[in-house]
C-alpha cells in the first residue's frame, strides 16, 4: 500500500466518522457544525478523486452556504419547545437493518463494477474539439448535456418561487428579513469590505477559466452568492424586495438566454440547443455569463428566505 492510498483511507474514515457524528449528535447546533466539517472533508475527497470541478462547487456550496442556511434556521428554531417522541427500539432496529442492507448492497455493487470501466471520456474529448472549450466538464454541461443544465436552472427558479410562496399574504412583494442593522467599523464590516470585492473577482475568475480549466458557472455563481450573503449579514448591502424589477431580470437571465440560444438553433434548422459552427465558444460564454449571474442571485435569495416585511419605504 502506498502513501496516497493510506491518506485516502484515513480521509474516508474521517468522513464517515464526521457523518456518523452529524447523524447521532445530541444537539442540532453541534450536528450542523459537524455538517460544515463534512462538506469540507468531502471537497478534499473530490480532489482525491481528481474531480477539481466538483471540489470547487462542493467547497463553495456544501460547507459554506449550506452551513450558513442551516445555522440561521437553527438559531430561529431555538425556541421550539417540542418534546419529540423518538422511534421505538423495534423501529430503530428495523431502520438499522434496512440501512445495513442498503450499504451492503452498494458495497457489493462498488466491488463488482465491470473491470474495463465503461467511460464516456473519449466521446466528451471528441466534442471538445468542435466547441473550442478546453475543460471537458464544462463542455459536458454546456454542449453534451446542455438540456439537463438548462432544466436544472429552471429547477433552481422553481425552488425560489416555492420558497417565496411560503410568505404570508400580507408580506408578498416585500423584503426578506435578514442580516442586521450593522454598527459601523466592527470586524464584520471590515471583513465584508475586504472580502466581498476579492470574492466577486474570484467568482468571475472561476467562471472565466472554467472554459479551459477547473471552474465554471456553478462554482463562480456559488462564490458570488456567498459574497452577497456576507454583504447582507454585514449590512453593507440591503436585501432587495422580491418584487424588484432588476432582481427579476437577474433571476430570469440564465434561463432566458439559454432558451433563446436553444430556440435560435431551432430556427436556424440545426436543432434545439445546438451552437453555430464557428461561434460556439462566444455563444457558450454568453450563456455562462447569464447563468453565473442567475445562479449567484438565486442561491443567495434561497438562503435569505421568503419576504417577511411588507413592501414600502
Amino acid at each position, binding site marked *: 500500500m502506498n502513501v496516497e492510498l493510506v491518506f485516502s483511507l484515513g480521509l*474516508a474514515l474521517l468522513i*464517515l466518522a464526521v*457523518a456518523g457524528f*452529524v*447523524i*447521532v449528535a445530541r444537539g*442540532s447546533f453541534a*450536528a450542523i457544525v459537524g455538517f460544515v466539517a*463534512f462538506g469540507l472533508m468531502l471537497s478534499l*475527497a*473530490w480532489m482525491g*478523486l481528481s*474531480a477539481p*470541478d*466538483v471540489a470547487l*462547487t462542493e467547497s463553495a456550496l*456544501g460547507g459554506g452556504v*449550506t452551513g450558513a*442556511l*442551516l445555522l440561521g434556521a437553527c438559531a430561529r*428554531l431555538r425556541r*421550539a419547545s*417540542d418534546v*419529540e417522541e*423518538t*422511534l421505538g427500539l423495534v*423501529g*430503530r432496529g428495523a*431502520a438499522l437493518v*434496512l*440501512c*445495513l442492507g*442498503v*450499504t451492503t448492497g*452498494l*458495497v457489493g455493487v*462498488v466491488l463488482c*463494477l465491470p473491470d474495463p*470501466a465503461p*467511460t*464516456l*471520456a*473519449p466521446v*466528451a*474529448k471528441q466534442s471538445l474539439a468542435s466547441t473550442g472549450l478546453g475543460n471537458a466538464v464544462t*463542455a459536458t454541461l454546456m454542449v*453534451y448535456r446542455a438540456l*439537463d443544465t438548462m432544466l*436544472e436552472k429552471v429547477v433552481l427558479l422553481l*425552488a425560489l418561487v*416555492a*420558497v417565496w410562496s*411560503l410568505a404570508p399574504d400580507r408580506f408578498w412583494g416585500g423584503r426578506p428579513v435578514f442580516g442586521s442593522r450593522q454598527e459601523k467599523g466592527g470586524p464584520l464590516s471590515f471583513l465584508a469590505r475586504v472580502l466581498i470585492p476579492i470574492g466577486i473577482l474570484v467568482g468571475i475568475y472561476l467562471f472565466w477559466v472554467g472554459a479551459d480549466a477547473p471552474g465554471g458557472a*456553478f462554482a463562480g455563481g*456559488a462564490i458570488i452568492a456567498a459574497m452577497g450573503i456576507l454583504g447582507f449579514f454585514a449590512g453593507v448591502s440591503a436585501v432587495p424586495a422580491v418584487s424588484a424589477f432588476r432582481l427579476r431580470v437577474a433571476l430570469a437571465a440564465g434561463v432566458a438566454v439559454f432558451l433563446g440560444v436553444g430556440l435560435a438553433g431551432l430556427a436556424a434548422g440545426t436543432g434545439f440547443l445546438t451552437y453555430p459552427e464557428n461561434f460556439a465558444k462566444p455563444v457558450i460564454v454568453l450563456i455562462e455569463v447569464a447563468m453565473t449571474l442567475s*445562479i449567484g442571485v*438565486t*442561491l443567495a435569495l434561497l438562503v435569505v*428566505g*421568503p419576504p417577511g416585511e411588507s413592501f414600502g419605504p
Partner: protein
Amino acid sequence: MSIATIFGICAACLVGLGLYGLIAQPQPLRKILAFNILGGGIFLLFGAVARRGAAAGMGGDPVPQALVITGIVVAFSATALGVAILLRLFEETGGTSLRDTPKESQSEETNS
C-alpha cells in the same frame, strides 16, 4: 484496492448513515441534515464511477462529474426549500413536530 474503491465504499456507508438518520431522527432539521449526508454519499458514488472511467488523458469521466455538479446545486435548493417550509411551520404552530397534534388547532384559534 484503489482510491476509487476506497471512496466508493465510503460512499456506500454514507448512504446507509444518511438513510438511517432520515428514518430515525425525529426532528425535521436533523432529517434535512441526514438527507444531505445521503445525497453526499450518492454523489461520491458517482465520483468513484467517474474516477474509474479515467481515459483519454482525463483524470475521470466528465459526464458523471457534470451530473454531480448540477446535483449539488439541486440538493442545495431542495435543502433551502425544506428549511423554509420548516421555518413557516414553526411560525404557524410554534413547534416543529411533523405529527398532527391538538396544538395545531389551538394556534389556529389564537391566530384568528
